[in-house]
Structures are given as C-alpha cells and as structure tokens.
C-alpha cells in the first residue's frame, strides 16, 4: 500500500448539551492513502459530517474531539491555531452539501474563489489567473463573468462547481466532500462527481466522500467505511461491499435496498435508527442486531481484518453461515 495521508484512530467527538458532554461520534478508525478515494456512508445522524468537521477541526471551542487524527503523520488535534489555518484549505479542502448556504450571499463568487488564496499570501493577479484556469477545468468557461456575479445569480450546480474550484485553488492533498451532490438534481450530481473524479486523477488528490448514497459511493471510491450511530462498523473495498458485506448491519442495509426489476418486498431493519448519544457501552448496533448476545451489549468491538474487510463485530467468526444465508437473498 502507498503512503498513508490521513489516519483516524478511535476518533470521537463530544458536544456539550445542557451542561453534559454527549458523544456524537464514538469511534471512527480509518486511513486514507495518498491518491486514494474513500467513502464514508451512513444514515442521517450517524456522525459522518461530524467526523469530517473533526478532521478539519471545524469544531466549536467547547466541543471535545477524542482519539487521534493524524494528517501526513502530524497530530491535527494538537495543532495550534496558526498551524491549523495552514492545514485548512491548503492541505485539506472541503466542499459541502448545500453550496448556497455555504456561500456568503453578499459577496461575489470571485471573492469566494480568491479569499483562501489571498489569505495564504498569493498575489491577487496570480490568484485570479489560477481561479480562471480552475473554473475552466470544472466546466465554467466564462469565468470572468461568473466571478463578477453573486451566488444567487447561479444555479446550485454551478455554485457547487465554484466551491470545488475554490477548494482546489489551494492545491490541497485531501478533499473532503460532505454530501456534495445531495442538494443537486440528478444530472448535475453526475457532472459534479465526474469533475471530482477528474480532479482526483489529474492532481493525485485523496478524496473522502461522505454520502448516504451507497451506489454513488461505490462508483467514485476505492474503499467504503460504513458508519452507524457514531461508529465505523465495516470497511470494505467498494467493488465487493455489495456482494461480500460482513457486518450484520451492512448486510441488513444491503438487503433493505430496493433493486430495479425485482418485485421482492423491501426489507427493513427491525427497530429504529439510534443516535450516537443513545447507545451504551457495547456495540452500537447491538439493540437491533439479530445475532447480539450479552457480550455485545457490554463491550464495544474493535475493527479487525476478516477476508480483506475490516469488521467490528464480536461474533463475526461464529455467524458466518447465517450472514451468508441473509446475503443470499440479495
């Protein structure tokens, strides 16, 4: 394997609510190599975005990150504010779910595009040229006109392209895309994902794609990490996750998906999705897992290597046959 760029080890995040610290992320262990694309998938509220914020330390002063976040070997959680500003933008770029909410409505698109570069000390002339080149590369040929316009004069798809261009302008090594296409219509989604893919191959960029769309994640990533209630339960190669899911949650997730051409009734996972702060000491999926035993409810399982997947399940060796049966229904 190539050099590791980002390493999360038992990373968590606690947020104070009414005087108490509540966990929104329990335990995320994940690595991203240089040039690799990794998907982080999970239901709404499973802590995907909060994990992304922790990586960039885009947290409020009273939020408490836990565990380790290492970027190119450096401990992000120990960085001072000056070093952190260099990291943000110049080393890790980020694009967001709703480009409109994430763009200042009273400043021109040019201001948004240039502000990161200007803050990093790039001369305005050079920054403008770089921005125009980037706009062309994300499919915006009339960059000069677009830069003079305001965000409300652009469609969501165009605005997201500008966000991508702004993120790429600082030449980061890692780009975190937090649900980059959720707010866009389907055709625009594909274009935006294609642009991200191009940027990745051209620049040797590492990608962390956060999404709840398993197909989208499978299409643009090398590996997928499945998150539930604030913890990563399985990490698998994108190509084989669908057919070879190991963890009871992932398998249940796969069998709950509707398939084109199939008249089979859609299955659901019994119980309701829980939030990270609702789960106790044990496995975060224990309450809904058909294979859960007492041990599962008292001790949190660690991720371990099983047939090329990483799976966090105490009983993974014992329940192999049942899992195969469940998966057989796919």
């Amino acid at each position: 394997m190539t050099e590791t760029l980002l390493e999360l080890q038992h990373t968590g995040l606690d947020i104070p609510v009414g005087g108490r610290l509540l966990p929104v992320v329990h335990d995320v262990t994940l690595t991203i190599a240089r040039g690799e694309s990794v998907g982080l998938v999970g239901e709404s509220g499973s802590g995907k975005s909060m994990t992304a914020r922790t990586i960039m330390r885009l947290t409020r002063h009273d939020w408490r990150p836990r565990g380790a976040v290492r970027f190119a070997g450096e401990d992000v959680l120990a960085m001072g504010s000056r070093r952190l500003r260099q990291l943000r933008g110049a080393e890790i770029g980020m694009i967001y779910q709703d480009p409109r909410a994430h763009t200042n409505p009273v400043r021109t698109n040019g201001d948004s595009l240039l502000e990161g570069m200007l803050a990093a000390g790039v001369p305005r002339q050079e920054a403008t040229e770089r921005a125009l080149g980037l706009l062309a590369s994300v499919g915006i040929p009339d960059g000069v006109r677009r830069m003079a316009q305001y965000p409300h004069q652009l469609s969501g798809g165009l605005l997201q392209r500008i966000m991508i261009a702004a993120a790429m302008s600082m030449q980061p090594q890692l780009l975190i895309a937090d649900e980059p296409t959720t707010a866009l219509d389907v055709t625009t989604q594909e274009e935006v994902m294609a642009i991200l893919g191009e940027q990745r191959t051209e620049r040797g960029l590492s990608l962390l794609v956060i999404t709840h769309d398993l197909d989208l994640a499978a299409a643009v990533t090398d590996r997928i990490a499945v998150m539930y209630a604030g913890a990563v339960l399985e990490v698998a190669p994108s190509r084989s996750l669908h057919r070879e899911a190991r963890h009871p949650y992932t398998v249940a997730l796969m069998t709950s998906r509707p398939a084109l051409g199939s008249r089979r009734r859609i299955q659901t996972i019994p119980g309701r999705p829980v939030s990270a702060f609702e789960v106790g000491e044990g496995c975060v999926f224990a309450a809904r897992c058909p294979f859960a035993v007492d041990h599962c409810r008292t001790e949190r399982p660690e991720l371990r290597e099983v047939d090329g997947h990483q799976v966090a399940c105490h009983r993974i060796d014992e329940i192999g046959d049942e899992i195969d049966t469940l998966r057989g229904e796919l």
Partner: protein
Amino acid sequence: MKEAPRVVGRGLITLLVASFVIYLALSLAPGDPATALAGNRATPEQVETLRQQLGLDRPVVVRYAAWLAASLHGDLGRSLQFRQDTASLIEPRLGVTFLLVGYAFLLILVFGIGLGLLPSVRSWLSWPVVVVTALGISIPAFVAAMILIQVFALNLGWFPVLGTSNGDLRDQLWHLTLPAIALAISWVAYVGQITRASVREQAGKEHVDTARGRGLAPRAIFSKHVLRNAAIPIITISGLALAALVAGSIVVETAFGIGGIGSLLVTSVLAKDYDVVLAISMIFVLAFVVATTVADLALVALDPRLRSKMSA
C-alpha cells in the same frame, strides 16, 4: 445604481401621501384658525367672513392643492401667533434641532453598535449587554431628561440645566449634550440589541464555516463574513432611529427648553397656529422619508440580492 430612481421615487410618493393625510387630519381637528383669530368677542357672522377671507370655506382637497403649490414655491403661510412669515420663523430654529438630532444619531451609531459588538470581543459581556440594553430600551426620553438634569446639571454641575448657546459649535454641543443623551438613550439600547443579535446570528451561518475551512484568520472572517452581513439589519434600524429622533426632539426640546422646531411645534399646537403646525409636521415627514430612503439606498448598495430583485 439602477435602483436609486426607484427608491427615491418611492420616497417622494410617501411624502406626497403623508402630506395629504396630515393636511386632512389637521383640517378635521376641532377648532379652526378663523375662530382663534377672530377672538372671543367676535360674532358668528364676523367669524364666517374671516373664514371666507382665509379660504377655509373651500373643500379640503382644493385647499390642500393650493397649500402644496404655495409650499413648493417656498410660501409656508403666516404664523398667527407670532405674526410672522412661517418660513422665516422656522428657519433659524431648524439648525438647533438638526444639530441635536445629528448629535443623538452619532451617539446611537457609536454607542449602540459599540455596545452590540462588545460580546463578540469578550464573550462574557454577552449577558451584561442583554441586561443593560433591556433596561435602556425601557427608559422614555422624558424620564431620561429629568434624571440627567438632576444628576449631571443640578447635582454635579457638569452641564447647563436649560437652554441653548449662541456661541461657537463647541459651546453649542456642550449645551446639547444632555438633551442628545436623553434623546438617544433608548435607541442606543435598541441598536445595541439588534447589533448583538444580528452578529450572533451571522456568526452561526454555514458560510462562516466555509471561510474557516479555507484557512481565513478569525479577524478576516469577522469583518468579511460576519460584520458585513450583520450590517444589513443594523442599517435598517439606524434609518428608523434617525427618523424617530426627529419626532422625539419634541419632548426633549421642551424638557430642556431648547428653541428648536420641536418646542415650536408644541407652542404652535397649543395656540392653534395652523400654518406653523402644518409646516413643522411636513418637515418631520420629510426627515422621516429622507432617513428611510437613505437607509434603503444603503441596503441596496450592501445587499446584492435586493438589487436583482428590484431590477427583475
């Protein structure tokens, strides 16, 4: 700015409509100038003759049109009370009122916005600012005036108790300091509250996170992404404040014995000095329209979304 004619036009229409409403309201008020002018011993016939001479028997719309035409030529009628041209009566008093209002407005901008920004500089000041502004809003100008006179003029003797000065600007401002504070105090508190709330709201916006994620320094984020956006409601409120100060000058000028148009309005109303009341009311409306129009123009300049909405 494409929108300027539209905004100014809207202001002019407001002015026209407001002037007619005021004219109408005054004409409906009990007692008319003819009765007042003729005196107690006049017979009904004499009053009626006077009414005809003054043109008061004509329909109100005709009278309004005549008044409007004359006003536009600078003829604001005559003061019955002072037996003087209304324009020449008002003109020398206008300066004092404008100075007072300008002084109070400056206090509002500096201390109101300053107060509202304190919690952004030191977060522990947030609650004290909330309490102080809540108290400040509830102090009426006349109460503030009495307290200020008692404490700073009578007890401490730092400022004059009453009156204005004919001296240089510094001396005039010294005389107007307590009145300006009395006039400004509740608006300082209000603008302070709006500023605090607005800055707080903008600081929590998602695009501020984008700016943080681009590696901008806190100072740059505050000025370019928080303050710039928070200025929009602050300007709206400041425009209203300026307009309200002009009306508030009535009470404060009376309380401090300042010979501006506010106190003149009070004496004119009591004397049923029709033309003067009308002229001063119009000046107030004009000030109100000018203040809100300027605020509107500033908003259009500051918020691009307003621009395209109007040109669309």
